[in-house]
């Protein structure tokens, strides 16, 4: 049904195929328009125009029901964090040769293993590493890397291939799947919150941007204190000021999330001191919102200044110290209320830096780099292959772990998104890393696994006296496999128990049975299938 009303057909006549595209693009807004009409009592048709006309596949709508109170905090290390001086290959001669003035001596590093040590600025990470609450994923990157800050950031947040310009973010697509009717029926709390930063694409989905942006911590504190984003009192003493006051008042009244934010901040305080700085302040704000049980799945904070072309050791030291101490404080704070277990924190940066130092005591834009995953829910340790300084490309490291592998891990094991839906969000299938201690096991859904329900022909067939019967389940559940003779009399029950999704095999021994045709039949949550086999004595 075309919802373009009087001119819908006109577009079709005039623009042919373009109309279908317009239709998809506009059905959401038509819905909005019509929802006004519905409220007025008119009956409007929506058949054929799903609310989510723009994004994702049908699979996505199925995973929305997975409830978890787990939270992901993303810390963007903006500017391109130098990986080699963060997780130092402390015994690698090539490293020391490439960086005669800025390499970090083995003796200074915080030892993680025989080969690697942390930057000395990260003293406070000793304990999490020892407790198994810190994972280091080596050499994360993507094929055909770009050295542009903006472009590479866009690739990281959109999870696209480097030659694809994607206008939505991986987190936005994930959240849209959790809130498929976000536009028409937004939740009480924002699905995502970013404090003190703006990464344009990250929370952008096809239908809307699902991120609430608090561009500075002061605004958060103002709202937490019961204030509003815009002050209608403090306007110029003119007609312009009067009209501005009017619009500001309306704007304040339009912010659905003020109430949720205020309730959450009323319910919680920070119980530790954070280091000074915008990023620690932002993390403190996140902690307060998480402890106050704001129903928000993803938070984003940003730490800028990693573009260390000059005086890297001074600049990066300060930044890594801030990062480590802020994250340590963050988990102490969360643990005070038992919330530490449900919060996973992950860093990302648009790229690492050149292997060789430059002439200014710094490093230039590079490629692959390690990232950190913090939290009580982390299997601490190393993942992926460490940086290979021998086989390089134009003086840059090759990646060993695709960044989307980390996203897939977080989505599937931390948030419990089914494998097929993860592939949908990421636009491809990626392995997962075993870095979540307590992964949510996703119940399989129809069409949601690589398996299709099937009862295969037995082998061998004909047989004497034994044969194997193979069947595949798309979902786990109680299964029975029974053998009948040609007249339908039950001969035996081979299987009658719960089985997992996947392929299973049962042996049938026909020792005392006469020659003839037998029927075998499997019953499972997927349905019922029957096959015939022939016993030839």
């Amino acid at each position, binding site marked *: 049904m075309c919802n373009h*009303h*009087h*001119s*819908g*057909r006109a*577009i079709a*006549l005039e623009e042919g195929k373009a109309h279908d595209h*317009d239709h998809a*693009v*506009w059905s959401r*807004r*038509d819905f*909005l*328009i019509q929802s006004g*009409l519905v409220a*007025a009592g*008119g009956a409007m048709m929506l058949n054929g125009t799903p609310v989510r006309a723009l994004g994702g596949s049908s699979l996505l709508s199925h995973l929305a029901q997975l409830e978890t109170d787990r939270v992901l905090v993303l810390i*963007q290390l*903006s500017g391109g964090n130098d990986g080699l001086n963060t997780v130092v290959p402390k015994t690698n001669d090539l490293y020391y040769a490439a960086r005669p003035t800025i390499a970090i001596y083995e003796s200074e590093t915080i030892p993680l293993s025989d080969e690697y040590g942390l930057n000395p600025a990260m003293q406070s990470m000793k304990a999490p590493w020892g407790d198994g609450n810190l994972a280091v994923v080596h050499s994360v990157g993507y094929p055909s890397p770009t050295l*542009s800050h*903006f*472009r590479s*950031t866009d690739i990281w947040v959109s999870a696209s291939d480097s030659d694809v*310009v994607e*206008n939505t973010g991986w987190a936005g697509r994930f959240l849209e799947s959790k809130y498929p009717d976000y*536009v028409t029926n*937004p939740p009480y709390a*924002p699905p995502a919150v970013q404090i003190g*930063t*703006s990464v344009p*694409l990250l929370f952008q989905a096809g239908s*809307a*941007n699902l*991120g*609430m*942006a*608090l561009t*500075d911590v002061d*605004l958060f504190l103002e*709202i937490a204190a019961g*204030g509003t*984003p815009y002050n209608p*009192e403090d*306007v*110029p*003493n*003119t*007609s*312009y*000021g009067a*009209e*501005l*006051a009017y*619009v500001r008042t*309306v704007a304040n009244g*339009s*912010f659905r*999330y003020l109430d949720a934010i205020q309730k959450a901040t009323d319910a919680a305080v920070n119980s530790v001191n954070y280091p000074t700085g915008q990023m620690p302040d932002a993390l403190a704000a996140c902690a307060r919102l998480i402890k106050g049980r704001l129903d928000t799945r993803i938070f984003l904070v940003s730490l800028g*200044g990693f*573009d260390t072309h000059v005086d890297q050791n001074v600049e990066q030291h300060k930044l890594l110290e801030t990062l480590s101490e802020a994250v340590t404080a963050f988990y102490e704070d969360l643990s005070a209320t038992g919330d530490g277990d449900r919060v996973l924190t992950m860093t990302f940066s648009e790229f690492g830096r050149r292997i060789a130092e430059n002439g200014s005591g710094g490093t230039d834009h590079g490629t692959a780099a390690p990232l950190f995953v913090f939290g009580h829910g982390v299997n601490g340790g190393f993942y992926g292959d460490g940086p290979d300084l021998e086989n390089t490309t134009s003086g840059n490291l090759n990646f060993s772990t695709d960044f989307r592998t980390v996203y897939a891990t977080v989505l599937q094991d931390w948030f419990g998104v089914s494998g097929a839906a993860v592939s949908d969000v990421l636009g491809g299938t990626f392995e997962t890393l075993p870095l979540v201690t307590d992964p949510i096991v996703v119940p399989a859904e129809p069409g949601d696994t690589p398996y299709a329900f099937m009862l295969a022909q037995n082998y061998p067939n004909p047989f004497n006296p034994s044969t194997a019967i193979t069947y595949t389940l798309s979902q786990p559940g109680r299964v029975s496999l029974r053998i009948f003779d040609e007249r339908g009399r039950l001969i035996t029950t081979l299987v009658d128990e719960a089985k997992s999704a996947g392929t299973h095999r049962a042996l049938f021994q026909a020792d005392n049975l006469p020659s003839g045709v037998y029927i075998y039949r499997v019953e499972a949550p997927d349905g019922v299938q029957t096959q015939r086999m022939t016993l030839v004595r």
Partner: protein
Amino acid sequence: MNRRSFLGGVSRSGEVGSGAVGFEYLPGIFADDERWTNAHRTRPKGEISPTPSGQPLATTAGLEPYVPTNESPWDRRRAYHLLRRTGYAADPAAINVALSGNPKAAVDAIVDAALAARFPATPDWINHPPPPDNAPPDEVQVFHDLNDLWLYETETEFYQESLAILQAGTGLRERLTLFWHDHFVTSLESTRTAAWLYRYWAILRKNALGDFKQFVHEIGITPAMLFYLNGDDNRVGEPNENYARELMELFTMGIEGPDGAPNYTQMEIEELARVLTGWSVDLYDTLEAVFVPEWHDNENKTVFGQAGNWGYDDLTTLLFTQRSESIAHFIAAKLYRFFVYEIASSEIVDELATLLLASDFRIEPVVRTLLQSAHFFDDVVIGARIKSPCDLVLGLAVEAGFDVNPAVFIEFRQGTRLLGQRLYSPPNVAGWPGYHNWVDESSLPARWLHADDFLPKQRTLQELALAMPNPYAIDVLVADFVRHFLPVQLSQRAINSLVALVLNGLPPYEWNPNDQGAEGRLFSLVRHLVQLPEYQLT
């Protein structure tokens, strides 16, 4: 059979214009207003009295020509003001052109271009014969389908003409056409036939800056108006006073004159209705208005004390000789509210009314004088108008530097509908209530939603940046973007925050507007700008 419904086809749907959306998010940027600057803060306190909403502008500037001074220079801010109020918005090139001469020349260029603008070729289809009553259903269906197409073309023509300001600088005429649509209201719901809509719109367009008396004459006997206000039912012996009443109350003079005295009595409405009897529409052949002498009341009528066997051709003489003062004030006030501020200044309106009388109700000299006046360019005028949905939707497109193409016109029509200004469908004969009614807790998030939806699809912000004076210096560029999108400049501190927003942790030297990722950063900036309450003002 109802021939009009037959021609117009079954109503495809009722539609509402306002988007009752629940979509909300917090774009919040700066909490306290100390961080904002405004152009007025240097005005010494006490010099002007508090000006709450609902008060006229506090300025002593009148209709005397605006002469730039150090205090009110002819600068980018005022050039944007002129171009926004006459053409929704401006691209940087148009600002440069305006600033290359003096403000008088800039206004003359805009008004002259509107006067000289060629009219779009009248489409052949307005003479397409409608199917007869006994036509086979297929033929009727084909007509309805064509009618849909023509309605769409009519709307598209509006967008093309409106945005002619970009190419030919002629957009003022169509902007005024929309103003007159909001004045001489008809609704598509009452006609649904493209030929009638087109003829009605052509009258608005032709007279937009022309002779108001001629305008009044023509509008009353166009089929759309004859149907909308029941002129086609107004016959001898059974007069229908609907049009006569609205003609006086809403289209010309208002209920009361400038002195507060009533302009007419109920008896005069009834008498005027009798003057207007006899008009109908040929529903079978030409679809034109026709005068049917036997339906006209051929007796004497007394209107405004003037007795005679008046007919339609006497209408404007009666109105404009007997109620010229009232009409001049009524129309002057409406023009003032459109170009300057919702709450009219009675002194300026008096002067404009005098001008209108002196020009024998020609609109163009009044508009030109108003636009060239010190009053129009006064500080207090800038930014004091609340944007209509067309202002917002078309303005955003111009500001973002969109590519003119049919897909964008679809964005326009859907966007303006979502925000509550569906073309050809004002809510009632009084037009869109406008002003504060445009912005409320559901339409404001819808405005944000529109910008969120529209901007990423355009991907033109890098081009816009490169058209700015210094796109490589991010702090300068941000300030220029603020000036480009908002009627007031923000404080340096606010600009610094926006710079930080764009850079997102990078050092300023890493900024390059040609970088592939720059589009997203600029979107992030513009998204914040257009979500600011300031953006709702123009």
